[in-house]
């Protein structure tokens, strides 16, 4: 593990999906391709419906990630914490796998806690130095509207967290549902998000929440994934164009 890249999709939503394929299956597909899926449920007050919470939990489980349900004002902090914990987990799994090859099955169980403390220190350090690519997938269906300013704040805040890491980090922000596709790329891959960025401008408000299809399309944003031609045409080219113009902008 010299220059490993950790890849994550972070879904920010407030309810159940209601269109297209199952988001749980989509998350399983992402995980299959080395992408962890985390989910944050945002609620105004009271509780998220039982159904909504169940779906969120299942998406995170299938995607090998973590989930949390929070109020809008807790969002920024939760994004950072969930991302870091999910990174730790992924690295832990990899380290565990390597240890298993050396020590045989149930490697961590045969290691005394004192030894595992040393492993933990190593995992922590690897987490800090690894490359990290995160796609934030923001549900912008009608009911999310009042929470979008908090989401926008969280996006900016998250970019500060990423900038503070030692390892290279990039993020991209997408909203779903999109105008023509299931998602719109709002901020292409970048290592710095301008605070003035308006998430709310030019949004298509609708009652459709195609979480599953959006996750599948978000997978296409990760360059390491082999894509079927139609998806590849749709996203790769666009992503590269945007990347180019962004580079001009930054440097």
């Amino acid at each position, binding site marked *: 593990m010299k220059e490993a890249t950790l890849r994550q999709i972070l879904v920010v939503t407030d309810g159940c999906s209601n269109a297209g394929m199952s988001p749980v299956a989509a998350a399983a597909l992402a995980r299959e391709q080395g992408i962890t899926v985390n989910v944050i449920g945002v609620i105004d007050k009271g509780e998220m419906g039982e159904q909504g919470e169940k779906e969120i939990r299942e998406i995170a489980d299938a995607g090998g990630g973590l989930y949390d349900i929070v109020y809008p004002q807790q969002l920024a902090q939760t994004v*950072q914490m969930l991302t870091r914990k999910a990174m730790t987990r992924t690295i832990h799994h990899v380290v565990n796998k390597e240890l298993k090859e050396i020590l045989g099955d149930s490697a961590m169980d045969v290691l005394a*806690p004192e030894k595992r403390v040393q492993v933990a220190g190593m995992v922590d350090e690897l987490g800090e130095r690894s490359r990290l690519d995160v796609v934030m997938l923001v549900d912008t269906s009608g009911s999310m509207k009042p929470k979008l300013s908090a989401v926008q704040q969280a996006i900016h805040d998250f970019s500060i967290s990423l900038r503070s890491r030692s390892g290279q980090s990039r993020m991209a922000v997408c909203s779903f549902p999109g105008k023509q596709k299931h998602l719109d790329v709002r901020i292409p891959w970048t290592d710095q998000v301008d605070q003035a960025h308006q998430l709310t401008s030019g949004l298509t408000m609708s009652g459709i929440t195609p979480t599953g299809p959006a996750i599948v399309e978000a997978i296409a944003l990760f360059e390491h994934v082999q894509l079927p031609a139609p998806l590849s045409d749709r996203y790769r080219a666009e992503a590269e164009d945007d990347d180019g113009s962004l580079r001009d902008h930054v440097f």
Partner: protein
Amino acid sequence: MSSNKPAIPDLPLQFCGKWNQKSYRVLRELGRGANGAVYLAAQGGVRRAVKIGAEGMDLLMEVNVLKSVQQGRDVRVAPLVSDVDDLVINGRTFTFYAMEYLEGEQLDRYVKRMGTEWVPILMIQLLARLEILHRHGWVFGDLKPENVMVTHADKQVRLIDFGGVTKLGNAVRQFTEEYDRAAWQAGDRRADIAYDLFSLAVMAVRLSADPEVWKSRRQEPRQTGLLCDIIRNSDSLYPYRVSLVKAFHGKYASAGEMRSEMLAIVRERTTGHRGKQASDSAGKLVGGLFVASLLLLAGTLYYAWMM
């Protein structure tokens, strides 16, 4: 309201560690944080604080930090770890660790009971702790009243939750927005000495300010100008304004530097009355000297001009 799964397990009333075979009797729960729950327990006739969490790796990282901080032989900064072990609850293995139990009061409760004039003194104590931590290459990160305790026995300030402690130069592992430099738009989240000093300064303001004022201004966007406003209107904070503002802007190179400046102000204020009289007469003396030197200068010029 926040439900981070898998959930933090409840400790059984009586348990024994799998590896080290130390047995514990749980007395009561002390508190729950982001990473786990802390219980008060008795082990071999000694009271210990036992922490258990949902994610073993997170807990082990904390132990890793606690142990490296303890390698120094200085004044103790972190609670001593006495045991790290596993325990099976309902067929699942969880990791836990035990540390010395510090009997005391959370910082904000202590200030509430004792009065805000204690704040500068407590901050000065805290700065001494932080300086040691920094010297060993660590930044505390999640500095807030909930993570600081004043011990009953010797009225010493102690840091208690090490979940946010980060190696200098890395990204801060855990933070609370209210005390976070980035959330106040005053910098990033890279763990440096100034990050801790920033949190400390916000904490000083928060502890001294009228709780109503602090609460009412919470809705405003977080900018250090807001903090300066509160300082300007607070009699107890105003004398320390220079130190606090310097901390907001990352102007201190070390905790020790901030500490000695605050200490000087405390000394000046405790010797306040006498000091003021002395400086008044000194002022007169200086004033007199100044007039004398002006006359002398005028005389010289006049002389030179005449020549």
